[in-house]
């Protein structure tokens, strides 16, 4: 299977997908780790894909989204952003709203 087809299947076949360096249990990069922490805090189930295990995936995901860096978060097939955007949205409460809008379970967290 071509790599872009593989990526497309993952992105569209899972509600929340994080392309990252390392795994949710062992992030290998601080930026990936921050997004993992945010997702874990929200309690949203997600699939982590480790780009360090696959050079083709590492390059393919950058082309797929026209985005030069890892991590990359996708929700319901849509590219949400990298670490900076995810953190900014989380701090503003927008990430929580996005998840709820898409019908995804978010742990009730105290409003900021």
């Amino acid at each position, binding site marked *: 299977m071509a790599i872009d087809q593989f990526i497309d299947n993952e992105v569209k076949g899972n509600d929340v997908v994080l392309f990252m360096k390392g795994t949710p249990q062992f992030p290998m990069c601080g930026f990936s780790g921050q997004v993992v922490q945010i997702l874990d805090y929200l309690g949203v189930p997600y699939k982590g894909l480790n780009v360090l295990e696959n050079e083709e995936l590492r390059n393919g995901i950058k082309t797929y989204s026209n*985005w*030069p*860096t890892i991590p990359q978060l996708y929700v319901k097939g849509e590219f949400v*952003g990298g670490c*900076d*955007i995810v953190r*900014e*949205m989380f701090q503003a409460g927008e990430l929580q709203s996005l998840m709820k809008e898409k019908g995804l379970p978010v742990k009730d967290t105290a409003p900021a």
Partner: protein
Amino acid sequence: MPMNANDIEKLIKAGIPDAEVTIRDLAGDGDHYAATVIAESFRGKSRVQQHQLVYNALKGQMGGTLHALALQTGLPEG
């Protein structure tokens, strides 16, 4: 080869002429920066699109020569 903050600022401004760019060298190693880019031309664009404009201005340096650039974009206030 690390980039210096001036070069980053110049590239961003060349790509986004109305951008107001602030760059901080986070670790003092010329390799980890935080940039704030404010531009009226961002209006109506999503955060992803705003960041993509900045990345395009950096002409492929991002993720390569430039390892770490924390990016925040926004519109001018008032």
